[in-house]
């Protein structure tokens, strides 16, 4: 496929969607993760199971929800359970294979901050808070993260660890006795990253078409590492782009606003 143009945001969503498979049971964060998860379901993974923390199990929304508890999620779900049941039986019970998250800030070990920038008691910026992520990060078998790549988001040191990745040294999960894998993939609008098998530090494994190592370095707040063999991410196919654009157009029409992503 040649000559098709696409945006960096579309590349990011498509690359994130490709990580999900038909067998996955995915706990979906709102915003970028929700777009990626639904794109996967509408393209290569029609049997992907999506659950949202509002208690909707096996939901198949035709448009992206604006909030985590839109009526669309409930109307298209196999069933809707209470929020305590969602967190007790389904998440804590170990029934979710993938948690797909975003966040305001991430560090090299995949720890996430969505709480504050600056001191907790005197924050420079008060962010939205944990929501479900604190326990999603440790309760799902593995975690995928999708975030826009810039130096304010990809930071050397987090102001606050809202949810655990691989900890401050990369070894905290095992020390705490956690059996879930933690973050195994970060997808951005520049590249995809996976953790080194030994150190658990995230390193770039693929660059999106046209993106240079220098651009990734400039947009990463730590001295970012590159894998021995960095490949080029496959550009979005015509089918992927069409499905994503249709989804965004349906969403914009339904909400009467521009699509969120």
């Amino acid at each position, binding site marked *: 496929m040649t000559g098709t143009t696409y945006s960096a945001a579309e590349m990011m969503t498509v690359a994130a969607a490709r990580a999900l498979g038909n067998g996955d049971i995915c706990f979906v964060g*709102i*915003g970028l993760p929700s777009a990626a998860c639904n794109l996967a379901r509408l393209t290569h993974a029609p049997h992907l199971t999506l659950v949202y*923390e*509002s*208690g*909707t199990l096996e939901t198949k929304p035709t448009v992206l*929800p*604006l*909030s*985590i*508890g*839109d*009526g669309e*999620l*409930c109307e298209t779900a196999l069933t*809707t359970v*209470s*929020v*305590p049941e*969602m*967190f*007790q039986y389904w*998440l*804590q019970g170990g029934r979710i294979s993938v948690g797909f998250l975003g966040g305001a800030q991430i560090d090299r070990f995949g*720890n996430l901050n969505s*709480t504050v920038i600056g001191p*907790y008691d005197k*924050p420079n910026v*008060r*962010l*939205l*808070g*944990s*929501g*479900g*992520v*604190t*326990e999603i990060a*440790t*309760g799902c078998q593995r975690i995928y993260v999708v975030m826009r790549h810039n130096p304010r988001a990809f930071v050397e040191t987090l102001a*606050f*660890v*809202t*949810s*655990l990745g691989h*900890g401050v040294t990369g070894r*905290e*999960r095992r020390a*705490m*006795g*956690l059996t879930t894998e933690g973050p195994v993939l970060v997808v951005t609008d520049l590249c995809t990253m996976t953790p080194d098998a030994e150190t658990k530090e995230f390193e770039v494994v693929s660059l999106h078409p046209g993106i240079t190592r220098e651009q990734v370095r400039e947009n990463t707040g730590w001295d970012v590492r590159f894998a021995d063999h960095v490949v080029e991410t496959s550009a979005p196919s015509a089918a992927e782009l069409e499905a994503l654009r249709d989804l965004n157009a349906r969403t914009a029409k339904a*909400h*009467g*606003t521009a699509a*969120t992503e």
Partner: protein
Amino acid sequence: MSELTTLPDAISRFVRPGHRVALEGFTHLIPFAAGHEIIRQGISDLTLVRMTPDLLYDQMIGSGCARKLVFSWGGNPGIGTLHRFRDAVERGWPRPLEIEEHSHSAMAHAYAAGAAGMPCAVFRGYCGSDLAKVNPNVKFITCPFTGEELASVPAHRPDVSIIHAQKADRAGNVLLEGIVGVQKEAVLAARAAIVTVEEIVDRFEGLGTNAVILPSWTVHAIVAVPGGAHPSYAHGYYGRDNAFYVAWDAISRDRDGFRRWIQEHVMEARPETFQERARAAVATRSA
């Protein structure tokens, strides 16, 4: 036994200054009309409990109702930040706001523990999160059977819980449908519960055997407030007024604009206004 009454009466009888009050509803069925009545009555010094303080608590915090907020996610869903909440936390306006911050899982477990009459909730949580360092109400205990370290938080026991539901019947039982959130737990955990409903029917018809019903003897006051969840939604009645959530960002951005909006749309309004608002939102949606 639940009693059918008016909103001003229910709020003035059950909600007192200094109370710990939970207004619940997870995106769906948020009891806006009841929250506005609390603002109108000028009830202050409240500890407000809610998993997702969104527009309603932004309005209550900006109006000076709250001394403390217990929560797990504070934002305008799909839009961004809550300006009144941030102004209170970052600059102490209109009064300083103490916060007790949790995760969703902790809040959900705390409500369930309250409903079960337990002193605390025990769950697998807060692993490696700094929330455990800044919230003294997060503790860790050791499972006496396996030795696993588990998180514990105090059970939620609100003085009053307030929810909005689709229907009550003449006997005072309450029916909830759709995304039911933590409302059942919030009601059962509370010392008193107020429920606003879209309508009161002679009897519930055509229900499955496992419908979410709160028996009349778990609820203290029931008030018919059609549209009472606007701008959130009531499954089967009206959709979410997304345009209002978008508009709130500009309305709430500065203190004067916010005060003008509260004066016009809360202080000079009545519970009956909600029916028109929900209808207008539905009309706009289908236009």
